[in-house]
């Protein structure tokens, strides 16, 4: 395996002969800031040089705080943003070379599960209408075939009895059921890739696991690739094979899920894990170690490593000057941190 941007895929070893379903190649998504509506005033560097591959049938989790660029990355994969630099190659199709009608077809192959189910469903449309819409737009003319497809999808997301659900409106369903409708809508075009943006963060604890399991089942039965975006590390372990952590527009660590949870390397990943708690009465007795400060502005990110102003292990003269490349610390485990540069002798 090799791609022109260097070996950045942890899973490449397992699938060395296959072309990945999704390749993110040195992707940059910058938003231009305007002064008075026309003068150039800099860029918001929401995604700044991201590389990874995703194979058919694999789930990858993307973890990061709000404002780290994970939504911009996702919107670009969905074809809603244009890459500023680099490319997204999905199903052998380059996003930068896809326009018009082709772009519509490109989008139809990717399902999208929104964060807030109530906000994502139009309140004045019945469930049937909501699920029919993507089929109509994508030229499925036969009404009976459409209804058949919708029924099949609803059964797959376990929204039964189907006949009772179809005429209902979103407000008549519970939060968990609404999220199932959103998942059904994402699945109705039989996509190859599902992008789930915090699919359970708005739901009650008692139904979260149910929805995660449903996504997992869909992934297995349809051999789907899934990108699961979240800020909650505790749900990741039940869902994904791979995980990458984003900070200030960059991927700072990428590994197999168990490797990352068991042996996290980057100080930011360590901080995230330290800050996530399990229910335990002892928690009330201790203070959590939290890095000081807040994520940097993406207009003027800090020089060198972007985490350096908050990092407890910062090495002045190195971390605040030179941007760390990806170091391979274990097979498939890459981390962008100078601590793991054997040549510099720091570790």
């Amino acid at each position, binding site marked *: 395996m090799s791609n022109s941007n260097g070996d950045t895929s942890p899973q490449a070893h397992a699938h060395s002969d296959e072309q990945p379903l999704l390749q993110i190649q040195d992707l940059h998504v910058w938003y231009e800031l305007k002064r008075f509506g026309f003068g150039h005033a800099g860029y918001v560097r929401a995604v700044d040089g991201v590389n990874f591959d995703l194979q058919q049938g694999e789930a990858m989790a993307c973890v990061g*705080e709000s404002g780290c660029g994970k939504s911009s990355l996702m919107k670009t994969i969905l074809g809603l943003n244009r890459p500023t630099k680099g490319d997204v190659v999905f199903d052998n199709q380059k996003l930068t070379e896809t326009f018009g009608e082709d772009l519509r077809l490109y989008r139809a192959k990717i399902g999208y599960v929104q964060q807030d189910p109530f906000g994502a469903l139009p309140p004045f449309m019945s469930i049937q209408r909501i699920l029919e819409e993507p089929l109509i737009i994508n030229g499925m003319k036969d009404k009976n075939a459409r209804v058949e497809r919708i029924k099949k999808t609803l059964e797959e997301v376990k929204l039964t009895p189907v006949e009772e659900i179809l005429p209902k409106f979103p407000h008549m369903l519970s939060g968990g059921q609404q999220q199932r409708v959103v998942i059904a809508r994402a699945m109705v075009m039989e996509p190859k890739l599902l992008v789930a943006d915090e699919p359970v963060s708005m739901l009650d604890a*008692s139904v979260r696991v149910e929805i995660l399991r449903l996504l997992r089942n869909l992934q297995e039965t349809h051999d789907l690739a899934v990108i699961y975006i979240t800020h909650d590390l505790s749900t990741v372990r039940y869902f994904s094979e791979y995980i990458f952590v984003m900070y200030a527009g960059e991927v700072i660590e990428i590994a197999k899920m168990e490797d990352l949870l068991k042996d996290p390397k980057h100080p930011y990943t360590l901080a995230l*894990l330290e*800050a996530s708690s399990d229910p335990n*009465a002892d928690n009330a007795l201790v203070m959590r170690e939290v890095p000081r400060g807040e994520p940097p502005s993406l207009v003027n990110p800090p020089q060198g490593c972007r985490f350096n102003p908050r990092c407890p292990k910062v090495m002045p003269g190195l971390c605040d000057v030179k941007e760390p490349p990806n170091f391979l610390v274990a097979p498939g485990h890459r981390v962008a941190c100078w601590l793991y540069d054997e040549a510099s002798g720091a570790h």
Partner: protein
Amino acid sequence: MDATNNDLLMVRGLRLHFQTRKGVVQAVDGVDFDLSRNQATVVIGESGCGKSSLAKAILRLLPRNINTYDGEVWLRNENIMELNDESFRRDIRWKKISMVPQAAMNALNPVMRIGDQVAEPAMVHLGLNKKDALAQALRMFEQVGVPADFLHRYAFELSGGMRQRAALAMSLVTLPDLVILDEPTSALDVLTQANIMNLMKRVKKELDTSFILITHDIATSSELADNVAVMYAGQIVEVSDARRFFREPLHPYSQKLMASVPRLRETVEPDFITGQPPSLLNPPTGCRFADRCPARFDRCDEEPPTVVRGDGRKVKCWLYV
């Protein structure tokens, strides 16, 4: 818990029912619990179980469509339910009990400087002049870790975490005995969340404040909890000290709820609760959890009593009778 411990808040038989076009919604239906000084009670439950209504009932922040509002709320030795609205407003709200409502950080006034907003309760309720009130606000800013120059900034200039801190400073500025926090961290990032929880631990220690923390996030709730009250369909089904609750919850609902929390450091497969909570319009006559309960038996058709166990834990379930 012995009686000498329960010296701050005692809630007995509190009911808050709303009148709607479809009928009466029994949002809070006969709630009992106690809170000691310098303690934190966490109220956990799913959305729609009435936990926010409980906070509003304690603080008498009521909408117009009230059907029933009764019971007793004892603050120290005074039944504050007997006060008229004016004296409640003047003597209790802010002065003795303050609240950080849900999404408070997004409810800050956009055209008022943060410092003025935080100082306002101290001026209105403690009668301080502006200078003293601002000085008090500054002390609270230091307490919650907001830089002093933020006094002169506006809400839009602050990050989410800083705005949440400012809302917390506002609730503390009158030095109340009790602060009710409604989902204080649910919209925040993991690191900010951990920061805010650290902060509340410190405030609790240094200012001798009591907290009622209302949340659906069980893992985060364990960061502050001395006691846990589990609410289901308008009723409290279990009250327990945190140590024993997190190790071994009693009520079948609490057990299911705890089992549904994904763990980061353990490899137990999380479970989920089948079915949905009952409608509060027409709750079932017996145990309200019976339909979803794995341990259901014939007595569950009658309303279970609240059993006080030898170790002081209370549970509303026939299994423990």
